C-alpha cells in the first residue's frame, strides 16, 4: 500500500526507501570495527621496521589474514556509507552529486577488491602479485 500519488512517484521525490538500511549498515559496521580497529592499530605496530620476509610471513598466517580481511571488508563499507552521506549533504548539484557517487563506488570497490585480493593471494599463493 502506498500513499504517494503516481505523479510524486514518477518525479522521484520523497523517500527512496533505503535510508534505514543505510543507517543500520553504518552502525553494524561501526560496532564490528570497534574490536577490529584496535586489532588493526596493534597490527600496524607489528609491521614497523620489519624485514620484507617477516612482513610476508606475518600476513600469510590465518590468524592474521582473517581479522585483516574482516577489517578491510568492514572499513571499506563503513567508509563508503560515510562518504556517501557527506557527498549527499554537501553537494547540491544533482549532476555533480551523481558523478561523485559513481566515482566513490568505483574507488571503494576498486581499492577494496584490490586490497582483499592481494591479501588472499599472498596467503594462498605467495608473493609475485603485481611484479614477480
Amino acid at each position, binding site marked *: 500500500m502506498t500513499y504517494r500519488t503516481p505523479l510524486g512517484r514518477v*518525479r522521484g*521525490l520523497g523517500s527512496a526507501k533505503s535510508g534505514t538500511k543505510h543507517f543500520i549498515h553504518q*552502525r553494524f559496521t*561501526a*560496532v564490528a*570495527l*570497534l574490536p577490529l*580497529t*584496535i586489532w588493526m*592499530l596493534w597490527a*600496524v*605496530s607489528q*609491521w*614497523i*621496521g*620489519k624485514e*620484507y*620476509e617477516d*612482513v*610476508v610471513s606475518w*600476513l600469510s598466517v590465518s590468524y592474521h589474514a582473517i581479522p585483516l580481511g574482516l577489517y*578491510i571488508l568492514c*572499513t*571499506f563499507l563503513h*567508509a563508503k556509507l*560515510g*562518504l556517501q552521506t*557527506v557527498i549527499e549533504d554537501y553537494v547540491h548539484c544533482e549532476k555533480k552529486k551523481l558523478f561523485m557517487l559513481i566515482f566513490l563506488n568505483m574507488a571503494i570497490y576498486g*581499492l*577494496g577488491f*584490490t*586490497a582483499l585480493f*592481494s*591479501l588472499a*593471494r*599472498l596467503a594462498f599463493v605467495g*608473493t*609475485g*602479485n*603485481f*611484479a*614477480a
Partner: protein
Amino acid sequence: MSQPPRKVERPLSPHLQVYKPQISSVLSILHRVTGVGLSFGLVLLTIFLVTASSNADCYNAFADFMNGIIGRLLIVGFSVAMFYHLCSGIRHLLWDLGWGFDVPTMNKTGWMVVIASIGGAVCYLMNLLIIATAAGV
C-alpha cells in the same frame, strides 16, 4: 501536462560561521573530518598490501617512504584521526542506544572523548616510536 517539474527551493540552515564554536558542534564536525581523512588512509593500506604481495623491491620502496618524514607525518595524522574517530564513534553509538542525550552528560562525554583520544594517540605513537627506534628505522 508536459511541463517539467518545478524546482523546489528548500531552505538551508544558516551558515556554520555565524555560530559560536561549541563542544557539541566542534566534535561533530571533527567526527566527519576525521572520517573523510581516514578514508584516504585506505589508499595507503591498499598500497601496503599490493607491495607486500608483490616483491621485496616494491615493498622496500614503500617502507622507505613510510619511514621518511612524509610517511611519519601520515602515521601521526592517521593515528590521531583514528583514535578520535574511534572514541567519538563510541559516543555516537551510545547516543544511538538512547544514552547520554542530556546537555550536562553530552558536555562531559565530549571532553572525555577529547582527553581519551589525545591520550590514546600520544601513548600509541610513543609506542610506535620506541618500536621504530629499536628496529633502527
